[in-house]
């Protein structure tokens, strides 16, 4: 079945290359079909792992590069899970693209590379050894780089692409280091071999491998402080691609972290160091809080979403870190809970972040702007987009009855249960992680209230926004699909948990406990539980009752429509509304140590000091890491390079001197 979907993708790419330019965008439906098939087969494989004794037939093949070198690909539960995530998101994005990518600048290029992008991500998830992994990994990065700069005219996209590509390259260097260390320790480059070999190795080597791979993959996942490329690159790409980048590609980083930490380092009879988990936890907490804090301040819708991706990666890492902590104490059941939370959130984030990015795409299409301050009142003009975007926002704010809540609830439980770890500091860290998660939740709610409220509610702030329109059926259909997924995963979490329980990691089996899909979710031997379906049902019942009452008694009430209350000024203009900036003003004040807000007021006079001709007011926040970490670093390297320039001063005698010195040096050293 995967082969068929592969065929679909390849044929799609071929069509994009050679079909006539007119109506080219319909070929995205081929990708959609391929992705759908892949999703089905991955889900089936996972189901078999979980429930059939035989397990699933693992597909496995190798490409021979030379007699000595070969690239192996192999599927397993973890691989299938991420494959499922990829193909679901890709399905929605492709359907969306078939409507959205009409009349774009470089249709062929974008079509082909879009397909390649999905394929390369699939290859990453299926790679079975370091070589194939690295090749797929860099191919993924390269293709995504081209998609980022696909608007070749814009300088911003170029710079974003440069930053992105360079940082990814550096991250890959760390990954290579990790692989090579494992190779020298075990003499094997395929992951199962590494896992087997590392089981007996010393803790030092494992720790170094852990650190290297955490940094390397974290670079791609966008953990703080390695995230700065993310809010640059994701918005630069076309929205269907940014959906995949934010929804899936950064999950490749998560996949890598789980692969290295849980599979390679966690091989047979492995034991973890607690501090690994603590490191991951702390990073997760930092990423989630800082990510959402910056998201809160963004006026650019897509940058806001990108920052919120940093936040969600942080939440996933909270779960992962807790899992490692639990494993290190041998509390496998709790580790299973934490891991399930992390995996669940990974899937969820793919769904709602995909939904939100696609939604922002159709907002862009409607209002011709990414700037929130130009929007407003879109809900009346783009009802479907608005509805689904709202669903996405509710989901990403982890509010019931949507999926975000389930995973965050699981994470909360895992973190609270961290109090049952034997050491005091692990207790405190996990519980503080919980506090960070709570803070993140509240901040996220504020951020997305701002995003949705300013973009979709109130009065339109620009003429373009006033006559915005929907982008057509495929677009809304794709959004609808993802929104439905969000609701489904929120109401019937057991579906996902059962698939997750197929993972080969200790303690996950228990998470897939039997019982009807709609039954309450009880965890950790009754430590707690809740009933997602019930919340929805009870609210619906309540609604029915209220409506019934209103129907019986409140029929003869009349509703008059009038202006909003405007304090008696007879004209309420859009400029009187709260702007996105104004909405977050209090927080800028409260968190000023982090934001370092700056404002400058320029007053120009006709006749000082009486006649003011104009006042310009600028305010913004200082990007902390960029200013205090990265800029000094880059400038230092630049300075060093400029210094070394004098070695090549152009004078021949000097060069002759080099030859002589080299000779003498070698003679001194070796003769």
């Amino acid at each position: 079945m995967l082969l068929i979907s592969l065929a679909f993708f390849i044929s799609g790419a071929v069509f994009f290359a050679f079909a006539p330019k007119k109506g080219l965008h319909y070929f995205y439906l081929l990708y959609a079909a391929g992705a759908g098939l892949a999703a089905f087969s991955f889900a089936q494989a996972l189901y078999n792992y979980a429930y059939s004794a035989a397990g699933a037939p693992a597909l496995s093949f190798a490409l021979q590069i030379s007699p000595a070198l070969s690239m192996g690909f192999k599927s397993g539960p973890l691989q299938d899970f991420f494959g499922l995530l990829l193909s679901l998101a890709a399905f929605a994005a492709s359907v969306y693209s078939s409507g959205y990518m009409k009349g774009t600048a470089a249709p062929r290029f974008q079509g082909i590379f879009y397909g390649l992008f999905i394929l390369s991500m699939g290859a990453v998830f299926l790679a079975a050894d370091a070589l194939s992994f690295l090749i797929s990994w860099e191919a993924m990065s390269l293709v995504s780089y081209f998609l980022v700069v696909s608007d070749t005219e814009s300088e911003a996209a170029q710079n974003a692409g440069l930053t992105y590509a360079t940082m990814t390259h550096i991250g890959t260097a760390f990954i290579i280091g990790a692989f090579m260390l494992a190779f020298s320790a075990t003499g094997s480059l395929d992951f199962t071999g590494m896992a087997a070999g590392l089981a007996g190795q010393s803790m030092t080597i494992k720790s170094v491998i852990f650190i290297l791979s955490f940094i390397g993959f974290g670079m791609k996942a966008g953990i703080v402080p390695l995230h700065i490329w993310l809010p640059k690159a994701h918005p630069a790409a076309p929205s269907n691609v940014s959906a995949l980048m934010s929804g899936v590609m950064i999950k490749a980083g998560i996949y890598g972290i789980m692969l290295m930490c849980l599979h390679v380092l966690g091989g047979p009879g492995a034991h973890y160091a607690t501090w690994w988990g603590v490191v991951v936890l702390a990073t997760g907490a930092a990423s989630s809080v800082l990510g959402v804090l910056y998201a809160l301040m963004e006026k650019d819708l897509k940058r806001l979403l990108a920052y919120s991706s940093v936040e969600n990666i942080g939440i996933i890492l909270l779960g992962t870190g807790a899992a490692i902590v639990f494993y290190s104490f041998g509390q496998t059941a709790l580790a299973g809970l934490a891991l399930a939370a992390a995996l669940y959130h990974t899937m969820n984030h793919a769904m709602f972040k995909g939904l939100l990015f696609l939604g922002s795409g159709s907002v862009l299409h409607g209002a011709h702007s990414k700037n929130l301050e130009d929007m407003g009142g879109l809900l009346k003009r783009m009802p479907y987009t608005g509805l689904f975007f709202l669903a996405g926002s509710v989901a990403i704010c982890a509010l019931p009855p949507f999926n975000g809540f389930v995973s965050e609830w699981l994470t909360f439980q895992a973190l609270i249960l961290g109090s049952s770890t034997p050491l005091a500091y692990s207790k405190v860290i996990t519980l503080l992680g919980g506090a960070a998660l709570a803070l993140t939740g509240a901040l996220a709610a504020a951020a997305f209230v701002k995003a949705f409220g300013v973009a979709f509610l109130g009065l339109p702030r620009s003429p373009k926004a006033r006559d915005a329109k929907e982008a057509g059926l495929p677009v809304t259909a794709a959004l609808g699909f993802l929104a439905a997924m969000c609701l489904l995963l929120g109401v019937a979490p057991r579906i996902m948990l059962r698939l997750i329980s197929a993972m080969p990691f200790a303690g996950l089996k228990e998470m897939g406990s039997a019982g009807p899909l709609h039954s309450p979710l009880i965890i950790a031997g009754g430590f707690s539980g809740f009933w997602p379906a019930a919340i929805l049902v009870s609210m619906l019942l309540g609604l029915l009752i209220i409506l019934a009452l209103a129907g019986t008694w409140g029929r003869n009430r009349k509703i008059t429509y009038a202006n909003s209350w405007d304090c008696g000024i007879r004209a309420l203009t859009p400029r009187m509304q709260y702007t996105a900036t104004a909405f977050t003003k209090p927080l800028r004040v409260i968190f000023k140590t982090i934001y370092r807000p700056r404002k400058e007021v320029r007053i120009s006079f006709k006749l000082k000091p009486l006649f003011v001709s104009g006042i310009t007011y600028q305010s913004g926040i200082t990007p902390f890491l960029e200013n205090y970490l990265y800029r000094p670093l880059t400038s230092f390297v630049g300075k060093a390079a400029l210094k070394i320039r004098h070695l090549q001063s152009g004078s021949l005698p000097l060069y002759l001197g080099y030859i002589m010195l080299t000779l003498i040096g070698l003679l001194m050293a070796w003769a």
Partner: protein
Amino acid sequence: MGMSNLQFLIIILLSPLLQGIIKKMKAYAQGRVGPGVLQPYWDLARLFRKDMVISETASWIFHATPFIVFLSTLAASLMVPVITPDAPVLAIGDIIALLYTLALGRFFLVLAGLDAGTAFGGEGSSREATVAILVEPMMMLAIFTSAVAGGSTKLSVISKSMHILDSPAHVLAFAAFFVALIADTGRVPVDNPDTHLELTMIHEGMVLEYSGRYLALLEWAHYMKQMLLFTIAIDLFFPFGIKGDALRSALFYIIKLLVLAAAMAATESSRAKLRFFQLPSLLGGAFVLSLLSLITFVMLGR
């Protein structure tokens, strides 16, 4: 359907009364006569009978919000043990689920504030969101303490497992929780429930555009939320007597409720409303309290 499954009706039906009682106590403390304790019922009834004026800027969010707020509060009240610790009806009574269900209502309320496109609405929403950001984590931490102590996040288990402020950690946690209570129910010194002065109002700012039965729903939901939070405080920090037979525990419950109400009224009439940008110091202090409570509990245990 047993006692445990109907106790949520107590919250739905008696929450206006609680509001009335608090108002009465405040009036007494301030040396006024004040309206009767049943006044909130009359208010609700009147509002339900009134016609509505709605801004034409508003979208369907504006119409949906009252229902969602009311229903989410309702759903939340289904999870809390009031006079019997047995797991209440539908949900298992997980405290986190409960709080996030309430948060759903708040989310839409804040949106509704932005919907009419007025400055007041935006102001109210912005401030509400800010307060929520400051309150949420400290409330969570306070809850963590008693959850860890009680060995579960189920309110029923917690309320069964302990008596009254069993450990120093609980005292600190309760102090923090009480501040959170003030903030969440929108009372002085955080918010002023009975003013419509633009510069100070938070909750009132958001619902400024509402009238008629929508307003009624919102107000009722507000009363319910207040009583709900009181109940949670009771379940978390001094659930003694809840284990006994229904009548006895009901009696205890009412007493505790009145005590809390008195405390609330006392604070409200003894303190002046804080400037908005002074809130962080108050709430931040409370946050430190809850943090301390958690750490002391982890370090010292019971």
